[in-house]
């Protein structure tokens, strides 16, 4: 329930945001774009926090504007892109949908989504829109001088640690924060507990369950090592010297420090951080994990608060950045003009109560800069400084229409190196060749 205090605070923050930054608020002044009945279809991905909140906001919208009805559907995170593709192929794609920003090139290269009217979204200009969002993210939402995605959440990857286990081995959770990959390896080694050849506790855990996770965990190491995914001609360069160095770092947790067993995991697509939550791994890198995600699986960890999030390590202390990624609302190019207008209106409505969004989905950070970070509810969130910094300093995933092929190829390369003890250079050569073949085929059309 919204209290009078909440209302006053939101009004003040909203007014300040509008006044100072020229960014959107949604009030009674925003009348319905149409009074005729409009039936929309809207698809999103499943997440225990984000999906129910989106549904709630859409329900509130349709209550406020009863001439608009929305057929709301959601799919597993990894399936949404495939469902949308099939939808386009069969003429059943939704009028509006949410999409991971790494898939924006897929839709943009095929001209499947419409440019958004930033003024309808409440911004005075494209520059105002750009200035109001994290730079790494907005670069993916804007294409050839037009905004195509209306950003929702956007977050950076953090190193989540179990502070109880830190203390057990004589580490100080504050002073002993690992800031470089070498330090991470040494700390992980101390945290590792083995019973013969069996790991009772892994010092650090990399996700091995899905190719997208492999790619977004490898991405910052590659960039920190001085590498790039592609050269200026579009050739995949992950197999160069920097790539080998990055893969060596990636594999060091297993090969050099003996702090991880890559074959031993309870991770699943819905809960990739299960090993950490079950205290079978002392550290795990993931987007912000909050009390809502911890409590159902490890109530003691949540109640006693023995967890902490650090920025990810870097090859040096000044290169501590991780991958950041997020989600956009977009509009199908086949949606009628009337539907497009209503979707603009609805998207603006959805993201007009950022405090409510934060309360429901914290600590998953929002893409927007203004209008939410000053709330006490945000400031008092555990680890908020690291969470915000990871978002603000993070690096974007490679923006390429062959993203899926790239992620799958890297996933196989990591498996060959860490599980089959394969040669790093050979594995990366194979991955790069696979990506280059995909790029060549795309160019051929």
């Amino acid at each position, binding site marked *: 329930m919204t209290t009078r205090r909440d209302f006053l605070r939101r009004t003040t923050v909203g007014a300040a945001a509008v006044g100072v930054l020229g960014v959107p608020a949604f009030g009674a002044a925003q009348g319905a774009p149409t009074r005729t009945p409009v039936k929309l279809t809207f698809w999103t991905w499943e997440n225990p926090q984000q999906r129910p909140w989106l549904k709630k906001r859409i329900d509130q919208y349709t209550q406020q504007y009863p001439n608009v009805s929305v057929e709301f559907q959601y799919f597993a995170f990894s399936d949404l892109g*495939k469902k949308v*593709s099939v939808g*386009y192929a069969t003429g059943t794609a939704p009028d509006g949908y949410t999409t991971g920003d790494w898939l924006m090139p897929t839709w943009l290269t095929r001209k499947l989504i419409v440019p958004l009217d930033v003024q309808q979204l409440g911004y005075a200009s494209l520059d105002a829109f750009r200035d109001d969002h994290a730079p790494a993210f907005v670069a993916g939402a804007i294409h050839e001088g037009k905004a195509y995605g209306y950003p929702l959440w956007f977050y950076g990857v953090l190193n989540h640690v179990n502070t109880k286990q830190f203390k057990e081995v004589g580490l100080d959770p504050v002073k002993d924060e690992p800031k470089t990959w070498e330090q991470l390896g040494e700390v992980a080694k101390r945290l590792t507990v083995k019973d013969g050849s069996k790991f009772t506790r892994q010092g650090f855990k990399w996700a091995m369950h899905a190719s997208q996770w492999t790619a977004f965990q490898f991405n910052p190491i590659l960039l920190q090592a001085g590498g790039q995914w592609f050269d200026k001609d579009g050739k995949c360069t992950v197999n160069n010297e920097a790539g080998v160095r990055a893969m060596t770092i990636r594999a060091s947790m297993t090969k050099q420090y003996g702090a991880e067993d*890559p074959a031993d995991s309870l991770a699943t697509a819905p809960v990739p951080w299960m090993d950490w939550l079950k205290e079978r791994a002392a550290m795990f890198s993931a987007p912000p994990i909050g009390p809502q995600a911890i409590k159902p699986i490890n109530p003691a960890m949540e109640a006693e608060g023995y967890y902490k999030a650090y920025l990810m390590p870097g090859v040096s202390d000044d290169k501590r950045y991780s991958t950041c990624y997020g989600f956009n609302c977009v509009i199908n190019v086949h949606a009628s003009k009337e539907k497009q207008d209503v979707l603009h209106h609805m998207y603006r409505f959805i993201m007009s109560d950022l405090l409510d969004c934060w309360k429901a989905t914290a600590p998953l950070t929002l893409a927007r800069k203004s209008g939410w970070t000053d709330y006490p509810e945000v400031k008092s969130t555990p680890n908020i400084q690291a969470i915000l910094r990871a978002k603000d300093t993070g690096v974007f995933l490679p923006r390429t229409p062959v993203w899926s092929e790239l992620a*799958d190829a890297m996933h196989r390369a990591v*498996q060959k190196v860490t*599980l089959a003890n394969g040669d790093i250079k050979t594995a990366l050569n194979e991955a790069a060749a696979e990506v280059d073949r995909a790029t060549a085929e795309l160019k051929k059309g």
Partner: protein
Amino acid sequence: MAFVLPALLFFVFFKYGPMGWAFWLSFTSYDMLSPPRLVGLANFAGLAGDPVFLQSLQNTLVYIVASTTLVTLVALLLALAVTTRVPGARVCMGGIFLTNVMPIIAVCLVWRFLLHPHGLVNQLLAPFGAGRIDWLTSDTTAMPAIVMVTVWRFAPYFMVVFVAALAAIPAEYYEAAAIDGTRGLNRFRYITLPLLLPQLFFVIVVAALLSARLFLMPYIITGGGPGGATRVLSMLIYETGFSYLKMGRAAAISVVLFGIVLALTLVQMKLFMRDEEA
């Protein structure tokens, strides 16, 4: 004509129509998002030089041969076992067949945990001196593990076919053979096996067809890993079509898979017909 029309329509719209369309798509470049464009044999030529496809093709052939052989063999052994006069053998048949009625998704998930490095399978093997086996994450054991799950799942199904066939063999044959002094393995070799041949060929053909279409087991249990060691053609078709949006190429792979299945069936039919004629 009116009598067969519903069946005819079903085949046209849901079987041969889509098959024909897939065949046509294999000569096009089609990303599902823009109209198909004819590219001739380019998709097939591309496959010939694609190591990922060649690895998946090899995996598929290995899987078909291994699982068909083992499924047939284990099914036959199970059938012989449950048709003995050992008390409780028939009851066991019901229990064994249960593996076939469990939901496949649940089966795959349970096997994932059973084959975990510290899972039940390794725990059961430990007293026999077996060390840790990374069933699903080693490129040498992942495919055998998938074959093992396949046998566990499908052998009981084909066991029923053999049980019915064994029951149909007249007892007089065995009585006459016994009078002539035929015992044990010779009984099986000279009476049971020849009379089971039609069912044996049926099981081999159907098991091979099922194996060629395998998708869910590697998809759920290993995700095609490690490093592509368990990725079979049906998985590659799915990835190529729906993850990479290359429907033309995916259709070309499905045509290759169709060719493999057709060849297997023709060879088996030829062998079967020759045996029938003999």
